[in-house]
């Protein structure tokens, strides 16, 4: 029994490790500086960083109050909203992109009014790419922070109570007690959301297109390069692998406890 389990576990490890090995084995190390330094790569890197960082900021600003409303209030309809929050995680990203197009496109439900009243067009723009990335990334942050708020709700209530009896007004309590207590969960949630935004492909290409220098992110550029210039695809993949590791390393204590 034990041997069978170990065999299958080993198979899983091979499945996870093999693609990375394959990627590194084919890496054109000598031409790497040229590939990474040219305009296509740099443009894609710039678009990717702008899209993912702005999306992370929006996630922080909108997601924190949402996590608070779900985790610390007894508002009606929380169950429905909670299901809605998880939806982008289970929805195929292409479907998400199409849905965004029907809602925010120039003929869409809201999009036609945005276009008519504000002259604001989202599809096939950098802003559209940011909206798509925010849509898919938001759940990761909200779930992490709401979970921390809910499991520690009693403790946070009590700590806030003590702080207030010591003479701290509500804003001081928020700044010196509540936020520091939630900081680890917020950091982890934000890192995951940002990584998800950086890797976003389906919703972006559906809603924002693939315009070099404007909406072409690293994943899109990689997919395109695979068909004509495999070496560039490898180089772009290396950039994203490095970014993924940079996010994973600070989180390893959370995910690999009891080392």
């Amino acid at each position, binding site marked *: 029994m034990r041997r069978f389990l170990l065999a299958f576990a080993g198979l899983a490890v091979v499945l996870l490790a093999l693609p990375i090995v394959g990627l590194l084995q084919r890496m054109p190390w000598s031409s790497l500086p040229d590939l990474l330094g040219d305009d296509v790569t740099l443009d894609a890197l710039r678009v990717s960083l702008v899209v993912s960082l702005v999306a992370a900021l929006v996630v922080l600003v909108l997601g924190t109050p949402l996590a608070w409303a779900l985790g610390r209030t007894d508002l009606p309809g929380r169950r429905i909203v909670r299901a809605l929050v998880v939806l982008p995680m289970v929805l195929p990203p292409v479907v998400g992109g199409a849905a965004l197009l029907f809602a925010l496109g120039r003929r869409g439900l809201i999009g036609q009014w945005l276009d008519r009243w504000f002259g604001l067009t989202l599809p096939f723009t950098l802003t559209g790419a940011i909206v798509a990335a925010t849509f898919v990334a938001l759940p990761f942050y909200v779930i992490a922070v709401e979970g921390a708020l809910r499991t520690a709700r009693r*403790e946070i209530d*009590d*700590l806030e*109570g*003590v*702080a*207030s*009896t*010591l*003479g*701290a*007004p*509500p804003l*001081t*309590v928020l700044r*010196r*007690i509540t936020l*520091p*207590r939630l900081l680890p969960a917020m950091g982890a949630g934000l890192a995951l959301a940002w990584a998800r935004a950086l890797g976003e492909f389906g919703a972006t290409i559906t809603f924002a297109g693939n315009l070099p220098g404007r909406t072409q992110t690293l994943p899109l550029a990689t997919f395109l390069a695979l068909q004509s210039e495999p070496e560039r695809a490898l180089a772009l993949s290396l950039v994203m692998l490095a970014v993924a590791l940079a996010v994973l390393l600070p989180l390893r204590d959370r995910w690999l406890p009891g080392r």
Partner: protein
Amino acid sequence: MSALSLAGMTRMGDLRLDVDLVVEPDETVAVLGPNGAGKTSLLRLLAGLLSLDSGALAIGGATVDEPGTGAFLPPHLRRVGWVPQDRLLFPHLTVAGNVGFGPGVDADRVAGLLDALGLTGLAYRRPDECSGGQAQRVALARALATDPVVLLLDEPSAALDVESRHLINGVLTAAEAPATLLVTHDPVEAATLADRLVVLENGAVSQAGSPREVRSRPKTRYVASLAGLNLLEATASGTVAVTALGTRVVLAEPAEGPVHLVVPPTAVALHRSAPDGSPRNVWQAGVTDLQPAFERIRVVLDGPLPVVAEVTPAAVEELGLRVGSEVWAAVKATEVACHAI
């Protein structure tokens, strides 16, 4: 001007808390009650974390909660120091950071309190590196640092080590200590720390008075069973303790130094003549009072060990007990609980 005065009612779920309570400056009042009586809710109400449905609450002479007039002062504007049962130290701050948390608490005040409570060496430790007794001292120092008008203690010496108990008692009995309200389910803790006892049962005060009054005239079954315990101060050396009156009491377990001896009234056996047998504490006493307490009679004794015995009416009949009678009293060594002070 009272440090605290409450006459009011509030509801929380199934519990209806309806309490009249006054704490004078320099006074320590213990609210004694079983689990679920509303003790912790009472403290939260006083701190401003819960509010009254009717009545009024004043702290330091100023009304802080009066639904009739709409007056309500939030916790941070009330001058109370709350020491919760589970301490609730701020986990991300050091010991010194916890004690100095309150706005306006300066470094000298923090240093003075750390010193008074034997915490100076722990100033830069995190709460999770403190023992239970140390954490309790930090929580007390943190509450005292803001100079409260009234200190609210929730089960203050539950599971404390001797050193912590000693340091905390020292600070609480110091001249500059604020008025103190402590809630506890432990009658020994209540009787040793408090000038006055208030018994809380099912959200209402069932009895109030000095520990001696409450002990000698219990009004409810709960008080009779708990607050009716005999408490004697003594100094232990090995398996013998000597009381303030110079009486030797044999203990089952060895102890050293100042102790409280706790003897349940039902453990005091009364006899017409000197009993013989196993290692016992036996003495001759006079009956000073007889009080009915439900199906039992409480017999108040004087003599070398002034305690209360609780016996059946049949025993009183059989022994012919009345005020002024002389009896022999006996307590087994194993019935004497010994608590280090």
